[in-house]
């Protein structure tokens, strides 16, 4: 016979009780959907974190001004200066690069096109420390910075926003706050790093930004790339030592700056993503268990309902093995149908999660295989007992069963 026939008999029996079968499958559907969504979200989150780790390219400490509290009121202040950056570069041996930066949103104009973008004033080593590559033209250098020259390097999306392309805009002039800047280079795309899109910035030399645009020597942020092999903690202590000295902060007084470790931030996010994955895995496990018990329950009912059928089949020459297989296959078909529906539901949920909630998701063939393996296993495990009961029925008792 037999597998093909058994399969047909199972389908027939499920079709005879379609509503009940659908209710029975629900647990498996939810379980598998949870597994699929879990794996999709987990893989998506991991991919995002990996990409950000990659983009960071090592340990970068971010130093910012901290808000000062005075008489219970928090006040914004800019405490960092170019001198602080110079002091860090000069006095610490723990860093590969010190990059001061200021940024603010400004109107820029090219031809008849106006756009409002972030103008980033920074030093020439910004591209190296933050792992940007030049696509066309060149990065500004220290003489541009020292000379406060009006030159700009555009991130990859800017030429498009100005209705032109990279090759077309290098060598041309754009207006930033009505000041003309020569475009000397365009960057390669880097992709979103998670907190903001770095591909729609305009870079200008730090001194130019301070004296021609902002009008002071403050910097908002200093990025410090920690030398390989140096511990983050040691580097942070050294920053604190130098900046407290530079700012003349007395022992016991609070810092007027803060140090943030972006990698640490990502590690935390990764941990959160893992917890989230375990949580969903727990839900998936519980609903598969509950779904499996539902399958077992219905299969036991089915065996009782069809006791007479079992007797008839045995009288017609079905072996215990034939009967066992028939009910096992029925349980597995139920589970696999549930698994298929769950897969569709999970894929749908993942799609909506990425479309509307903006969560990154990835559905892989591995998760599809996982879903089907899971549901087949549930069918096998929870279908076994009812099937064994069916197979071991005495044919005479079964035939007499009303």
């Amino acid at each position, binding site marked *: 016979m037999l597998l093909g026939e058994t399969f047909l008999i199972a389908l027939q029996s499920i079709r005879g009780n379609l509503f009940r079968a659908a209710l029975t499958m629900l647990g498996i559907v939810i379980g598998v959907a949870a597994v699929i969504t879990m794996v999709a979200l987990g893989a998506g989150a991991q991919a995002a974190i990996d990409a950000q780790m990659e983009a960071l390219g090592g340990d970068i400490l971010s130093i910012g001004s901290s808000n000062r509290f005075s008489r219970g009121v928090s006040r914004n202040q800019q405490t960092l200066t170019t001198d602080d950056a110079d002091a860090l570069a000069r006095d610490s041996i723990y860093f590969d690069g010190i990059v001061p930066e200021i940024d603010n949103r400004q109107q820029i104009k090219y031809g008849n096109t106006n756009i409002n973008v972030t103008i980033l004033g920074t030093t020439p080593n910004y591209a190296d420390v933050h792992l940007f590559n030049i696509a066309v033209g060149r990065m500004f250098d220290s003489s541009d910075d020292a000379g406060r020259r009006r030159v700009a390097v555009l991130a990859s999306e800017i030429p498009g926003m100005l209705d032109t392309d990279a090759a077309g805009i290098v060598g041309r002039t754009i207006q930033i706050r009505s000041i003309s800047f020569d475009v000397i280079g365009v960057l390669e795309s880097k992709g979103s790093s998670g907190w903001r899109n770095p591909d729609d910035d305009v870079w200008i030399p730090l001194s130019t930004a301070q004296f021609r645009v902002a009008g002071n020597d403050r910097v908002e942020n200093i990025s410090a790339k920690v030398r390989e092999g140096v511990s983050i903690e040691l580097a942070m202590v050294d920053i604190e030592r130098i900046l407290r000295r530079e700012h003349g902060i007395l022992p016991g007084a609070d810092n007027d700056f803060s140090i943030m470790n972006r990698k640490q931030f990502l590690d935390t996010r990764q941990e959160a993503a893992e917890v989230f994955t375990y949580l969903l895995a727990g839900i998936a496990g519980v609903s598969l268990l509950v779904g499996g018990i539902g399958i077992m329950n219905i299969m036991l009912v089915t065996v009782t309902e069809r006791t007479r059928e079992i007797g008839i089949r045995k009288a017609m*020459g079905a*072996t215990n*093995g034939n009967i066992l297989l028939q009910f096992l296959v029925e349980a597995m078909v139920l589970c696999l149908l549930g698994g298929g529906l769950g897969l569709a539901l999970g894929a749908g949920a993942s799609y909506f999660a990425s479309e509307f909630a903006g969560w990154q998701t990835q559905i892989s063939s591995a998760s599809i295989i996982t879903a089907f393996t899971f549901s087949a296993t549930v069918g096998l495990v929870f279908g076994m007992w009812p099937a064994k009961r069916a197979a071991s029925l005495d044919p005479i008792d079964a035939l007499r069963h009303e």
Partner: protein
Amino acid sequence: MNAVAIPEPQSDVVIRLQDIERIYHMGGETIYALRSVSLTIERNEYTAVMGPSGSGKSTMMNVIGCLDSPTGGNYWLNGRLVSAMNDRQLAHARNRDIGFVFQTFNLLSRMTALANVEVPLIYSGMRRRERHDRAQHALETVGLADRMSHRPSELSGGQRQRVAVARALVTEPSILLADEPTGNLDSATGREIMSLFDKLHDSGNTIIIVTHEKRVADHAARTIRLSDGAVISDGPSGDEA
């Protein structure tokens, strides 16, 4: 001279029961359903088994039909010792050698007449095409050529029993076992079914019918009477014990 293998002359004995005993234990009580039953049934015999309820008729049917194993004695079916068979071998014997017809028809309600008749052939591992042809032929034999795709609920009692007979016949068993085949039918339909059995007997089938109706038993050539699990008479039908 060519050495030609001459087959053993085929024995005409289909069923041989020797001192068959079937004991049930029910709550400390021992019930003798069959005590020391010995009999032989030959090919193309037409036999009725009679007796009041509780006389052991059904137990004997179940033992002969390989649904039940005797607790004592020996049973040979076509020369093979059934009383020594395991579950699997019993299932095969039921599939190949026995054709059951039940009082309550015992058709599978979700399936068409044709699919019902195909059930035993599925378990003998026959291919779909051949199965289909055989089942169709069996239904034609019982006069239901025009009802093949009907479900049991769309058939009359007599038609249902005909489907059951077709299902019993389809494997070409050594013996047809009918347990009160007319018990659930009105007398006119019952007569129809009995004339079908007569016809099947005429075409060479070996038939055992369990009944408590003398009218039914009279169709058979031989009547075995049981009482309290023992054979009390065994002879040509019509002889009043």
